[in-house]
């Protein structure tokens, strides 16, 4: 089970990124404080309008609202992805020191993060793609703090790379964001939990078998007793 294992992608088309986000939105509890990373995680915000879920943005905003457009744009009201956002009733602003006190201090219930690779023990590699050629430096941003600080870390990503390589591996080959931090992986094919026994396959999308998922995963999967079709 190495990173070079031959990956077989099933003929069933994967779900869209928005559906990964929806599956994750359905996992979030009311009243929770949630931080959404750049990429697919940001799309989770489209599915929680009207729900009692408080988005934290590491730039220093709680109850971060939906994206602002046109005349709603205020240059001093952005999220950590540099997008203009709206205020909500009860929104608050604070400095980045306080923001990361929240993050490292265990006050964030869930962080949803993108990833380049996840290992069988929940190691996360998400900030440094060697293809960029910058060596040991790169855009760490808030990812390492979120990975170690949030009570629960959910990874949202495609199951394999665009050139068909495995992203779920026995060991990550890219530079780590944090060790043993991931709780759940939701991909465009499956939902996998990281447990002390290893990766447990809980759900696959309609038409995809457990064997199909294993065939595109370079780490061994334990099939859950209650393995089932992913529902939305």
């Amino acid at each position: 089970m190495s990173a070079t294992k031959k990956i077989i992608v099933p003929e069933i088309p994967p779900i869209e990124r928005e559906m990964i986000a929806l599956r994750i939105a359905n996992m979030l509890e009311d009243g929770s404080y949630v931080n959404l990373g750049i990429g697919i995680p940001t799309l989770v915000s489209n599915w929680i309008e009207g729900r009692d879920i408080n988005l934290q943005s590491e730039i220093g905003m709680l109850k971060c609202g939906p994206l602002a457009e046109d005349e709603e744009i205020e240059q001093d009201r952005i999220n950590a992805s540099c997008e203009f956002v709206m205020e909500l009733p009860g929104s608050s602003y604070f400095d980045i020191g306080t923001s990361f006190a929240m993050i490292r201090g265990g006050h964030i219930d869930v962080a949803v993060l993108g990833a380049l690779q996840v290992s069988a023990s929940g190691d996360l590699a998400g900030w440094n793609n060697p293809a960029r050629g910058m060596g040991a430096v790169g855009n760490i941003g808030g990812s390492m703090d979120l990975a170690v600080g949030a009570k629960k870390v959910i990874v949202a990503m495609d199951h394999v790379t665009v050139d068909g390589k495995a992203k779920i591996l026995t060991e990550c080959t890219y530079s780590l964001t944090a060790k043993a931090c991931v709780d759940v992986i939701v991909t465009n094919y499956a939902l996998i939990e990281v447990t002390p026994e290893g990766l447990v396959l809980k759900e696959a999308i309609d038409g995809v078998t457990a064997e199909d998922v294993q065939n595109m995963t370079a780490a061994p999967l334990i099939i859950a007793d209650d393995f089932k079709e992913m529902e939305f």
Partner: protein
Amino acid sequence: MDKVYNTVEAAVEDVFDGAVIAFGGFFSAGRPAGLTKALAKRNVKDLTIVLQQVGPGNEEILDLVTNGQIRKAICNYPFPRSASKGADHPFEQAVKKGEIALEVFPMGTFVEKLRCAGAGLPAFYTPTGVGTVVAEGKEVRVFNGREALLELALTVDFTFVHAWKGDREGNLIYHDTAQNYNTAMAMAGAITIAEVEFLHAVGDLNGNGIHTPGIFVKRVVETGRPDLEIADI
């Protein structure tokens, strides 16, 4: 003490070769663009710059880069988000060629290093970065069964911040997410210089809602509210 300077040029006049300078701001929010542009017009070099990232969305810093004024950068998200933009970006290419030294810290560590410098705390332990490249060369110590890294305070010679409202004694209020790094950096600077959108008389601001008390600020200059230019990141 009246701390008002009439121009950004006068406010940055004594920045010296080799100085370490922290710049507040995050994309469109709270960037000290006026002070930074004034610095780019001065013939100072070998600067160490401390800030989240070097453009896009921080175009005025690019002048310092292309002028060859930068020796080192300390950042947490240094490059353009997309690799393709990075390939065209003068800062990323200068780092790649070794013309600018780059040190990267996780965002929470980065801001805490600045706060600690301002707060007289020489070092702290954080769980962030354990088991990653960030931990290389750093002491790892276990507290309550959990590993943490020793990180050092980051002292800076000058800090440039951008505030919404300020009074003549340096009390500052930032606007919404423009607070960002400005608060911690204002504490860290041996000489903190604030550009403000609106300069107020002493006593006009509500003392119970000040983000940066005047004791942290040596100079204030009114630069007005910047135009919104949305950078393509």
